[in-house]
Structure formats: C-alpha cells, structure tokens
C-alpha cells in the first residue's frame, strides 16, 4: 500500500464527510504529503469560535509512522508550544497506530484543546499560568483565540452582555502603559498578551518595583 494511495483515500473520505468540521487540503499545489488541516475550537472552552490551522507533514513510511503535526495558529495551551506550535500528544509519537487517520489525529488535537494536561506540559510557562491562575489563563487563551484564531469578541463571564468592553477594560490593563511599550516598537497584541500572562497590568510610579523591567524581559524573549 502506498503512502499516496492511503492519503488520497483519507482525503476523499473526509471530503464526503463535511459535517465532521475537520478540513484537510494540500499546503501548496497538489503535493498531498504536505497538508494543512483545520478545525474549530471546542465549545465551552477559551478556544471556542476560533479556527485552528495545523501544519501536517506526512513521512515516507506513513501510515506506519505518525504524521508530523504542528499548530500554525498560535495557541495558548499547556501542551502546545506558544512559540513553535509543537504539540505534546502521545498518539503523534510513540503511541501512534496505523489504524489512526489524519482526521482522527485532528479530532484528538481538538480534544486536547478541551482537556489540557498541565502536569505534562509542552510549554512550562503556560502550564504554570494554567495551574496558578486559571481565570488569568482562560483570559489569555481567549485573547489569543481572538487575535490569532479569529474568534469573535470574547465575552468574559462578568462582562456586561449589552455593551462590549474594550480590550483594556476587559483585562484590567492600563492603556497608557500599553502605549509606552508601543512607543518602544512592540505590537499591541503582544504587549497585552504578556501583561495578561505575567499579571502586571500597568507600569509607572504606582506599579510594583521592577514591573517595567519584568515586562520588557518577557517582551524581548
């Protein structure tokens, strides 16, 4: 059985099953050994409303070796590297079985978004955030879903339903502090992400000592 035949078969089966919400297509041209998969962020999670793209390289000995998958869309999740999109999931490593398919793998990634395993992290810092400040983690994850995965305006549970709050209000971030960092050349979304993650929502005379340095250090990583 050739790799191409198997992939073609999988693509056909998925094409006939649009209700699965899982999509696969060649990354470029008609090379079916390099694909892009996509699925919706699971409901009732901070990823809801987002659309997640996954880069998929199919090794020569597929399906006897697992597909090589990496998130193209930035995801804030303990088992996904916030920098590289590398994924920590056993079925994509030593627990791969040739009866699994690309669709099954993408569904597993969707479940991974719904059920993080912070005790076995890919991204230690995100996992620390998840374990120490769940609300803050959810806020950041939701914010990332919005700016990177195209999720609609996030409504946090305590937000007034009639009047959407500004990003700054929603996260309790001082807009003036953000402007200062923007003046240094950092992108606004990155500044907000770092402020959310570190919990340092403002800088200046009434902020804790070293706040600016700490944020700068994070921004420069």
């Amino acid at each position: 059985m050739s790799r191409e035949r198997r992939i073609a078969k999988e693509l056909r089966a998925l094409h006939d099953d649009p209700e699965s919400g899982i999509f696969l297509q060649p990354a470029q041209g008609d090379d079916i050994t390099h694909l892009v998969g996509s699925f919706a962020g699971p409901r009732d999670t901070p990823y809801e409303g987002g659309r997640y793209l996954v880069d998929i390289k199919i090794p020569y000995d597929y399906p006897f070796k697992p597909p090589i998958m990496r998130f193209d869309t930035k995801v804030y999740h303990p088992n996904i590297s916030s920098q590289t999109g590398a994924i920590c999931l056993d079925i994509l490593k030593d627990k791969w079985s040739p009866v699994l398919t690309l669709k099954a793998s993408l569904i597993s990634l969707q479940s991974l978004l719904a059920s993080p395993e912070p005790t076995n992290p890919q991204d230690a810092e995100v996992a620390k955030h998840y374990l120490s400040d769940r609300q803050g983690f959810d806020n950041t994850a939701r914010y990332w879903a919005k700016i990177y995965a195209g999720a609609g305006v996030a409504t946090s549970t305590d937000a007034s339903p009639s009047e959407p709050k500004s990003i700054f209000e929603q996260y309790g971030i001082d807009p003036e502090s953000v402007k200062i960092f923007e003046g240094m050349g950092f992108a606004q979304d990155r500044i907000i992400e770092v402020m959310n993650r570190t919990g340092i929502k403002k800088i200046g005379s009434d902020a804790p000592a070293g706040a600016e340095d700490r944020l700068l250090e994070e921004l420069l990583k």
Partner: protein
Amino acid sequence: MDDSAATKATCETTAATSDYEPDELDDATILRLTQEIKDTEALKTPLVGELKPISVLLDEYDDPAFRGKIKVLGGGNAKYRQIRGDGNCAWIAFAFRFFELALAYHAEEIEILKKHVMSLTSLLDQAGYNENGYIDFIEETEALFSKLPDMSAEALVEEFNNIEVSSALVVHFRLLAAAYVKTHPEDYMPFIDDGEGTTIEEYCNRQIEAFAVEADHLALSALVNAVGKAELGVVYMDRSAGEDAVVHSFVPMTTTTTMTGEQIKIDLLYRPGHYDIFYR
C-alpha cells in the same frame, strides 16, 4: 505495561522556559533525531534474517547463565532466525513463522487457512474497527496467501523484508489481538486492571495497536486466541537460575472447528526485550 496508564500528553518540557533559545533543538526535533538513530541502527539488521545454527547465538554470549540454557535447549542442533529489533519483532516473528510453516501445505490446505484467517475479519468488525481503517492491511495478508502455493522459503524471506508487506502484516495481527481482547473483556480485564482505571480500550490503544510497542504476555495470549490455529511456545533466555530455559506455551482457548489438520506450532526465542524465531 509500565506506561499503560500514561496520560495523553507526555512530553519533556522544553519550550518557553526562561533559558529557551530558539536556536536550540526543540522537543520534536530531539525525538525525531533519536528515532532516526534508532532506525538507522535497526536497518543494519534485516527484518527477517537467515536461518542460523544456535551456536552463532551462543558465541555472542560469554555469560554462562545464558550459554548453559542455550546448550540445554537445542543440544547444539537447534537453529534460530534473527528478527529486527524495532518493537515489532514478536509480531513479525509470529507472522513469518506462521506463513513459513504454511509453505509446506498443499494448495488446497493453504486456501482453507486463508479462508480461516480472512474469516477472522468479523472479529475486527465486532470490536468496532472501521473497515476503511483496516482493509489495506488485510489485503496484504490476502495477497501473500495467494502467492504462497508457488513460493519458496527464500522468496518468503524476501517478501517479509519488504517493509510495506511486513508492516501491514504486523498491523493485521496486532488488530486481531486487540479485537480479541476487546471482544473478551471478562478474560482480560483482571490483568489490565492496574488500579488506575485503565480501560480495555486504552490498554489496546497503547500496548497492542500502537505500532512498534513491544508485545507483552497479554498481547501474545490474545494473538494466539484470535488466530485460533497456531500454538506458540516462547523460550525465555534470561539470567534466571537453573540450567533449563523456561518455556511458556500459549494454546488457543478454543481451537477453531472450521479447520482440520494439525495446529501450527510456532516457537520464539525471547531474550530480555527481544524476540527471534526458534527452530527446535
């Protein structure tokens, strides 16, 4: 069975720690490179090797505990066939020996055996496998059966050294074993229950279906029960005390009534972490 209860996310932490440098190898790269080294090493051994006198194996061991057992076992006349140590060795060894013994059958007997093995597909359906997921692998088995009446032993070795063929057979036999466990939970649950809530499904996913995970005792028992037409003897070559190597026999719980003739008798030689085929 160490990691049968492992969580789904099982990675070493690397990225985004404070000393993280984008230029350093990330987790996935390290894993890939390690696997490449292992694969390269494994490639130096054929998937299924030539038949060799047991004395060749004996020469590899200085340890008297091993040497004594090999001597007692074969009386010097036994032979063995080395199998590549890639985590699939028990499965390839079983499958190869199964077909090698069938080489001696008449064409009609091969046809009956083929029908029997193909009939086991219903077990996969009962266990809930999707036909789309398994059909490609089973077709390789069927194709091999069709070639068998005209095949020489050398050609069979060559066939099994085609990684696509042997990998497909490995998957087929793994699925049969897993399907047997899933359809006979009462027989296997007592052994799978590790107090951590591991289910039959999880056990099968992680220990039997997972490609390149070594066969454990339970998996071999399930394989023999699923196939129903072969008995398996595993000769344990370890450092345990005593002159005699321990032989563990797996006999199908219910021998199939659709088959006539003798059971196929397969012997494997087990050294810690690896299986080869043993010829008495």
